[in-house]
């Protein structure tokens, strides 16, 4: 089954499973609501099993997978999927698998057992009870070994890296062509963005990690690609279709294209801008809209890109530049780019801002400006995407260890997954992963990598 189809049907069955689990805890087995949800789940499951033999529902960190394909936790599935992730955690479960030939009785028995876990060793209890009850077509497994998962994701990481660097190259090419007045088209940009979207569907954490690597190239290009990835990750949570994500990605990567028309000395000025220079700088959204229109693209992609270009410096309260008047409605996508653009700009060192915000502090700074500069709902969704300690943040743990955040726990945003780099005694550590949600350790504080001589790219690439 093609990945897209697997994802679609996997989401549907998972959703029905959650509804059934919830219903079974409220109603008895004769209640019509229960009967209906039971039938809905079993018929969808059996249809799937007739083709695939086995339906495997897995969690890795807080992500849900069906037979190895990651499910989208978008607005539609937000509440149900979070519930399921929590349930897996309560039972210390990594996987529930349903096999072909499963009977109604087995499912009913399972639902009865699955109501509340015992306080000690819930997984063993579940596994043994299933066996004792003769439930052979539902198997459970403990959480998947994170290390082996990382190994199996190597090829995805490679693909994401290629997509990332291709995007930088594509936006560079467009900027160069615009500057030198050569023919410009969006073909190449579209192509790299579409690959980013595909990578995002596979595993967004790899791409989000790449956005943490800053300043290895011209700021504008590096930044444009980061903004695109961050926007795509939030857009994915919003439940946008694949094609809509493609358009959003193109618009995001093009948002600063107007800057290509500004004097490079102005952009890279190490000192503060004079009033006159600042006025000039404020024209880049207008230049951006103009250049995108001049690409002769008034199709949905071009229109969105031009809109985002002109609106991305307008605040939620309609202050900002270049222009908005009371009563205007700022577009959803522009509000989203406003957040991710600010976040990436704040966390990136530039000639005129050599000390950037640490990622967690940037998140806090954004949060303090919700309702004024940033859309509060989108900001929440953004934080739920990148966490309180975004991937790539170097942190000191209460254990005294120092590590880099490599994953986000949606149900415990302040307790990320951390790859330990230096142990409490100051020794370099290679393969130690701490999922803070499962351990009595907390983040003590974030640290500037350069203070420890750490190049995060060494760990993320």
């Amino acid at each position: 089954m093609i990945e897209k189809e697997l994802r679609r049907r996997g989401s549907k069955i998972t959703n029905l499973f959650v509804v059934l689990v919830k219903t079974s805890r409220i109603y008895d087995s004769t209640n019509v609501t229960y009967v209906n949800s039971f039938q809905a789940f079993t018929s969808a499951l059996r249809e799937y099993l007739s083709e695939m033999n086995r339906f495997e529902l897995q969690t890795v960190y807080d992500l849900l997978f069906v037979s190895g394909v990651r499910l989208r936790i978008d607005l539609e599935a937000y509440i149900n999927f979070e519930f399921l992730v929590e349930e897996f955690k309560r039972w210390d479960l990594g996987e529930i698998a349903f096999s072909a030939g499963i009977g109604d009785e087995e499912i009913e028995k399972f639902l009865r057992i699955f109501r509340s876990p015992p306080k000690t060793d819930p997984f063993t209890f579940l596994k043994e009870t299933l066996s004792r009850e003769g439930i052979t077509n539902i198997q459970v497994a403990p959480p998947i070994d994170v290390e082996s998962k990382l190994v199996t994701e190597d090829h995805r990481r490679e693909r994401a890296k290629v997509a990332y660097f291709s995007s930088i190259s594509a936006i560079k090419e467009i900027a160069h062509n615009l500057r030198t007045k050569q023919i410009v088209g969006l073909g190449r940009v579209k192509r790299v963005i579409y690959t980013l979207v595909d990578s995002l569907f596979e595993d967004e954490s790899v791409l989000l990690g790449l956005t943490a690597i800053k300043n290895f190239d011209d700021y504008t290009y590096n930044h444009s690609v980061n903004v695109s990835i961050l926007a795509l990750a939030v857009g994915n949570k919003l439940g946008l279709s694949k094609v809509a994500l493609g358009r959003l990605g193109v618009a995001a990567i093009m948002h600063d294209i107007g800057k290509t028309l500004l004097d490079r000395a102005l952009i890279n000025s190490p000192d503060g801008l004079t009033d006159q220079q600042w006025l000039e700088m404020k024209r880049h959204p207008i230049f951006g809209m103009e250049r995108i229109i001049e690409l002769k693209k008034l199709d949905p992609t071009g229109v969105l890109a031009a809109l985002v270009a002109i609106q991305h410096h307008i605040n939620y309260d309609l202050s900002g530049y270049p222009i908005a008047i009371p009563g205007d409605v700022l577009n959803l996508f522009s509000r989203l780019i406003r957040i991710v653009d600010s976040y990436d700009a704040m966390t990136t060192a530039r000639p005129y801002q050599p000390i950037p915000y640490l990622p967690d502090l940037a998140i806090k700074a954004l949060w303090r400006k919700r309702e004024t500069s940033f859309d509060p709902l989108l900001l929440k969704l953004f934080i739920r995407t990148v966490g309180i300690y975004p991937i790539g943040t170097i942190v000191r743990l209460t254990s005294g260890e120092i590590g880099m955040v490599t994953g986000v726990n949606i149900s415990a945003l302040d307790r990320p997954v951390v790859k330990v780099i230096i142990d409490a005694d100051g020794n370099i550590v290679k393969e130690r992963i701490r999922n803070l949600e499962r351990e009595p350790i907390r983040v003590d504080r974030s640290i500037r990598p350069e203070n420890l001589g750490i190049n995060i790219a060494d760990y993320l690439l």
Partner: protein
Amino acid sequence: MAIVAEVKGLFQKLIKAVKALQMYGEGHPSFNEFFQNLYRDLDDYLLRFGDFTLEVQQFGVSCEGEEIYKDEDRSTSLPYRLFSDGIRAIGFHPGLTEAELKQFLSLLIKEVKPQEEDLATLIWEGDFSHISCDIVQQGVEVPEEVKPVDYLSERGEKKIHLAYPIEEDELRRFTIPLSEVALTDPEIEELKREVQMVDRAVYHDFIISFERAPLTSEQSYIIFFEGLSELARELLRLGDLEGIARLIRLGRREEFSNKEPLRLRFEKFVDFVNSEEFVRPLIRFLIENWTKVDQTIAREIMGLLDKRSIPTLFALYKEAKGYELEQFLARLIAGYGDAAIEFFTKVAEEREADDVLATLKIIGTTEMKDATKYIVGLFSFPSSEVKMKAIENLIALGEGDALTNISRLIADPNESVRIATVKAIAQFGAIKFADYLHEIITGDDFKDRSYEEKRAFVFAYADLLKEELIPFFEKGLNRWNPMKSNHIEEMRNLSALALGRIGTSSSLSVLLKGSKSHRKAVREASVRGLKLFEKRGRDDREGAEEKRE
């Protein structure tokens, strides 16, 4: 494992279908044959053996490492085109639908806009559920090592300006309450609503931003104006009439209409608005959303339609079902006045009776002015139904020259026209013609007319004046006929029937009296009159009962 020999056969069929599509286009029987052949076998294969993958090389295609197709001619080679666009593998999966396969084939022959798209992007945008592609990014090197630029050391001792004031200690002390970061159900619903409307909002907001933005490049205005039609088409698809109205207002702004390049492009946009491609979906949208549409905005857009849109409006009128919709379209068409009449005349020249009847219906229901000449022109139309309707319209219009024309029609050399005319006169109660009818009925040449025509005239006359005519018909019933004139007998019979048709107590008493006459002819005619009287009374009673029920 794919069955290579079978896949080879399938790919050859795919090539044939692609070539047929290229040569004949979709919908052509030759293409359909090739396509059905391909789909049937492909579907059958996927059901029996499951997925298979085609590996794409520069000039060939392989399956399981075995070459199954080769074409080294760069101008025709499909593998070459796929390979050049970065496609390295194509997978087909069970569940593939006919529509999907057809869409896929149409992409393979699509002429791409260089720099804007290629096969890889088109296939990706196609978002296929049962066809997958492996696409490579060409010419990109992933760096082995990446070192961040240290702007701080580069600065040396210079003072640091911060774009963002970093209040690090203060921020460290600040904590985001995690409970507040969770999205509540109403918040999720709010976002979902916005996501559902986002396509429409993007276009709408883009136009508002364009209106406001102090753009400096004349070229971008030119391109925007060039794209007005494309924008309007999309806005209409998204149901955003206000957006279309904004485009119109923008085009009419003085600062733009004064500029020749922009004015010319706006004119082209107006042409597009009047084309069938736009008018048809526009009207359909208005029809479906009539109660929800802002009428002022709708009128503003309709104001841009000129006589060029009449043929489309007329075509829609003919298809329209339901009184309200017909009225809406009829009024739109009638609103074009002379231009509409000019169009109707052209329609009549085509000699399609149904079309002409539709034009008459529009004239009739909207009481269109200045249509007399057109209607009169239809009196020579071959279809008597058209003539009848034309007369009806003419009478309904009731204008001075319309009446003159009616008089002319009553004397038309063609009997069916004369009959249709008097029937219409009666139907519309055009009492002003009563004297004229009297003149004809009592005239010398009336006797030479057919019984059918005489009946039409007598009945029309009776219907117009009713009781007033009882003495006249009594006279006709009892008329002395010593010479056995056929005409007098016909008129006796028709007078009796007219009395029965009038159906009042006075006309009944005349007929009863006649039925006791010593003259056989009078008796027989009176009995026929009485029968008609009774029948009409029964019909009326039944009608009244039905109404009561």
